[in-house]
């Protein structure tokens, strides 16, 4: 009895964690290249969820189409945000783009509030699939779907970054923008592409979480966004496998922690964040950087 409950919680944690990982990837990719915390990422996630919701409820599209629509919409939004709010500030000090990002986030959140109203909307899944029963471990169809899609996207991203030319350009740009530029890499395009991919993953996470909790609302991005960021820091910001691991660990920590202190569920992530920042500020898989004097 104890074990089946425990495993059920582990499955819950991994499911939640895989969505955090998807969100964390968006943060980590952007941070890796621009050293910017893209505060608007949580709203990109929320927008992805709403586009998916519209696709399912208004246009009666199947789930797969809704997922793709959510990703495409989020992707476009991410690219536009970068062009409008971050690109003009690329040469400014560190604080200006951060505040601009917060501005975009507030704007999108409240625009959604005006357009959609504050109440949460039901997000029907609109699909049918079998679950998985492994004796004491039970995985619901929805959880299985979320896990499979997340893993598929993460493997795809890994392939993209390690094996393709644009991936190589992204890695080069993250290491050294000036040199990458001298090597003939068009860094504006690489940065746009990074936002596109990161935002698409965030949008996918939005749709998946919306379906998982059967709900979407304009403020839904706030906590998952912050937690996605925590996951990115946990794994070592700028580090892509780190973001995946960080997301899963955070999801597990949160679900298992909530068993004992449910009212402090949202505080767990921040406690984890502060602990990691204090004891290993570069994250679990981050590398050490020393300031050049």
């Amino acid at each position: 009895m104890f074990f089946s409950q425990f495993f059920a919680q582990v499955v819950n944690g991994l499911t939640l964690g895989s969505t955090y990982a998807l969100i964390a990837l968006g943060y980590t990719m952007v941070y890796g290249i621009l050293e910017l915390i893209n505060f608007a990422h949580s709203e990109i996630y929320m927008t992805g969820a709403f586009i998916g919701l519209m696709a399912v409820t208004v246009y009666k599209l199947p789930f797969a189409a809704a997922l793709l629509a959510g990703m495409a919409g989020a992707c476009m939004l991410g690219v536009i945000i970068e062009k409008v709010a971050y690109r003009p500030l690329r040469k400014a000090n560190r604080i200006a783009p951060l505040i601009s990002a917060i501005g975009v986030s507030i704007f999108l959140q409240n625009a959604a509030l005006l357009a959609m109203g504050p109440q949460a909307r039901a997000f029907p899944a609109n699909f049918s699939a079998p679950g998985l029963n492994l004796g004491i471990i039970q995985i619901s169809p929805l959880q299985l779907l979320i896990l499979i899609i997340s893993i598929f996207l993460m493997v795809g991203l890994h392939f993209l970054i390690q094996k393709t030319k644009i991936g190589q350009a992204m890695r080069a740009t993250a290491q050294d923008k000036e040199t990458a530029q001298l090597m003939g890499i068009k860094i504006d395009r690489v940065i746009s592409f990074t936002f596109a991919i990161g935002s698409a993953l965030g949008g996918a996470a939005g749709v998946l979480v919306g379906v998982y909790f059967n709900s979407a609302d304009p403020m839904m991005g706030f906590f998952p966004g912050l937690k996605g960021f925590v996951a990115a820091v946990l794994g070592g910001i700028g580090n892509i496998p780190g973001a995946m691991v960080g997301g899963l660990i955070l999801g597990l920590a949160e679900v298992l922690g909530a068993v004992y202190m449910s009212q402090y569920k949202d505080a767990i992530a921040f406690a984890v964040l502060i602990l990691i920042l204090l004891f290993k500020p570069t994250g679990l898989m981050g590398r050490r950087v020393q300031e050049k004097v």
Partner: protein
Amino acid sequence: MVIGINIILAVSLNLVSGFTGQLSLGHATFMGIGAYTATLFALKLHVPFLVALIIGAATAAFFGFIIGVPTLRLKGDYLAIATLGFGEIMRNILLNLKITGGPMGLRGIPKITNIYIVAAAVILVIFSLNRIMNSRVGKSFIAIREDELAAEAMGINTTNFKILAFAIGAFYAGIAGGLFAFLFRYINPNNFGFMKSIEILCMVVLGGMGNTSGAVLGATILTILPEFLRSVSPVISQYRMVFYGILLVVMMIVRPQGLLSDTSFDFLKSSVFGKIKVKKIAEKGGQ
């Protein structure tokens, strides 16, 4: 009166973020600690208002110290996120404690704050802040913002001074919180959440980071403007937060140093008027 409270909040955050260069996204937390502590002391222990106000501010400063010790080793973005995290943890705690009334908050606070008290508080805060900024302590704050490593090489214990700035900022924010509680007579954890922190940050950024007059101006504008919009049309006031968001982005792109700033010289050079001015000076020099 709200303007006065917001001015105190803005100048105190400006001390931390503008002068010392430590971006904080949790300033409202200290306001909340001040508000709750002052209220609880006044309601439960019947401490006189002014004493409660000071106790609230001192408690906020103490929390500033406690939170500052671990987090101020972090830099830039990480510090911003850590302060945000602490703010959320604190809000979670306020929501769950019995003594703070949970999500219902605290009610039945007597209305004591009046225009004279607020004015006196604003004057005292700005006066003492100016004194600090003109002293060895304030100069050390600015040195840390300008170049932390060089500041250390000058013998400044940067960690201690950052914590000091944080604690002083928290103290002032605590005063603002106390004034707030005894003005609105009702407080709940959401008065002091992330959105309030952002609002204070907007005031500082709008006025100009690292400039006390700027913070005062920013606080005044962002307090009056929403009220003004509401009086013009209730529909527009719904767009207040949307407007905030756009304002932040546009501000960063067009005038990142804020309305008033001590780097206004750079702006002169880049603006149209500046160009004319520079050209005139150049012509004079040529003759």
